[in-house]
């Protein structure tokens, strides 16, 4: 558990970036408050449809902040010093990921709490919704590790923009069918649309686990792939 010492330092580092952290919490909540009145005319903006999309939007910030800290450290002499400690690539990736897990949980709790005040109704099991969202949040953190291991910190904002667009066009707050089935099938190759489908199906249609199992495994699979790729890329940077 040696990596916990580094995780603790990264946790502090994350907190020092108030701006990112504030945006990670504030922006999604603002969006939720702005968009939800429209729900009277557009069913996509009902709390049950909106909350998962807003949550994913919030998670993109996890990807940004985690990759920023890792990429900045890679650029500094501190990391070469840390790399002479007997830690393995997975230890480093754990240390840079761990601080973001509580943030993801707080984001989800805040957004769903406010959505509940706005009249969120669910036909299915909210526990399943949270499970899918939690695994999806790990996926975003995993993407952060991929970007942070590979990119310079100046390139990180581009990765952030790309992931943000993919999340929005994954159906964060509109129906993918608007763009036709071709676009939809492309977006279905990524985990974001699956996370949104699964959570919405549970809340709006009362779907159970077996109904959303395929979506669930897409999300799970991608999360594993992102972390594996992050570890792989980090390992390659360890010995240059």
């Amino acid at each position, binding site marked *: 558990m040696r*990596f916990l010492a*580094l995780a603790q330092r990264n946790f502090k580092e994350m907190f020092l970036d108030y701006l990112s952290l504030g945006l990670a919490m504030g922006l999604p909540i603002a969006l939720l408050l702005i968009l939800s009145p429209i729900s009277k005319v557009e069913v996509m903006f009902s709390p049950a449809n909106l909350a998962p999309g807003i949550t994913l939007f919030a998670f993109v910030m996890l990807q940004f902040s985690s990759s920023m800290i890792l990429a900045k450290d890679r650029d500094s002499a501190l990391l070469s*010093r840390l790399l*002479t*400690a007997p830690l*393995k690539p997975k230890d480093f990736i754990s240390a840079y990921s761990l601080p973001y897990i509580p943030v993801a949980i707080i984001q989800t709790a805040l957004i769903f709490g406010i959505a509940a005040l706005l009249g969120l109704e669910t036909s299915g099991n909210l526990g399943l919704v949270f499970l899918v969202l939690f695994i999806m949040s790990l996926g975003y953190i995993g993407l952060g590790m991929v970007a942070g291991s590979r990119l310079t910190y100046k390139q990180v904002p581009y990765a952030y923009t790309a992931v943000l667009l993919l999340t929005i066009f994954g159906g964060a707050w509109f129906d993918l069918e608007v763009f036709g089935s071709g676009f939809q099938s492309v977006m279905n190759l990524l985990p974001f649309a699956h996370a949104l489908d699964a959570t919405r199906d549970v809340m709006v249609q009362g779907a159970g686990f077996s109904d959303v199992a395929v979506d669930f495994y897409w999300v799970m699979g991608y999360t594993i792939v992102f972390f594996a790729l992050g570890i792989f890329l980090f390992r390659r940077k360890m010995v*240059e």
Partner: protein
Amino acid sequence: MSNTTSDNRIAIQTSNISRNFGDFIAVNGIDLSINKGELFALLGPNGAGKTTTIKMLCCLLRPTSGTATIMGHDTLKDPIAVKQIIDLSPQETAIAEHLNAWENLSLMGRIHGFGKDEVKKRSEELLEMMGLRSRAKEQVRKYSGGMKRRLSIAMALVSDPQVLFLDEPTLGLDPQSRRSTWEHITELKGKKTIVLTTHYLEEADSLADRIAIIDEGNIIALGTPGELKDSISDMQVMVVKAKSLTNDAIEGLRKIYPEIKEVDGGIEIKAKELNFNEIVDYLRSKEVVIESTSQKQVTLDDVFLHLTGKELRE
């Protein structure tokens, strides 16, 4: 565990280790054998390949060819075993800017697997030793350059490594801090195997048991400071202090004595046999006003100039 070194007095062994960056050869087939408990200096100008060598020994860079072992562990095959017994103070100050000195030291101790109490005890000693005690609870980004540097070195000591790498430990320090850092390093002498890189002659001369002079990726001389100086001890060095030294005069003199170094307020002439009178007469014939002439002890700088034809410090 791989233990391939038969001689257990040897701490570090490299065999024809090289590193290229593209077409450029930064380190060109170096063979080193460093004993346990030895303080070994890699002395050379900027760009000589010192940092590249250190990074290969610390498992941070992959050699293009050749191998290195630390206490018998191969740096490529068994990096974790190597990392368990080494620590590095990188050339650039390497600290977590937003933590205080305590937290920085504790971070290093804990990622090396030391318990809380042990880390606390060692951190206290190191803060004391580096004179950082009174400001240990302050965020280190507010420290002066010298304090950061001292902390950076202390961070390499928390894990009590068997083999310590110090890459330019006094780079950018003021003379006073440099001297006190030398004292700290001297205190560690004999207790650990230390590899230090530097482009300061005095540093290598006063600290090292043995020195490897490195230039353009090659080791061009290796020995104790005394041996290195002895290697050119049959040389004489004459110092001429003079006003109005013209290039013409110096170039003329170079035809007889090729090893001439321009120093502040004069020149240093080095050769196996120096004819003082001849030199003085020649300079006078070139209308040089000589203030003084003297003979000088051979320094490592002279050794370097002799070996490479250029000066170590610019």
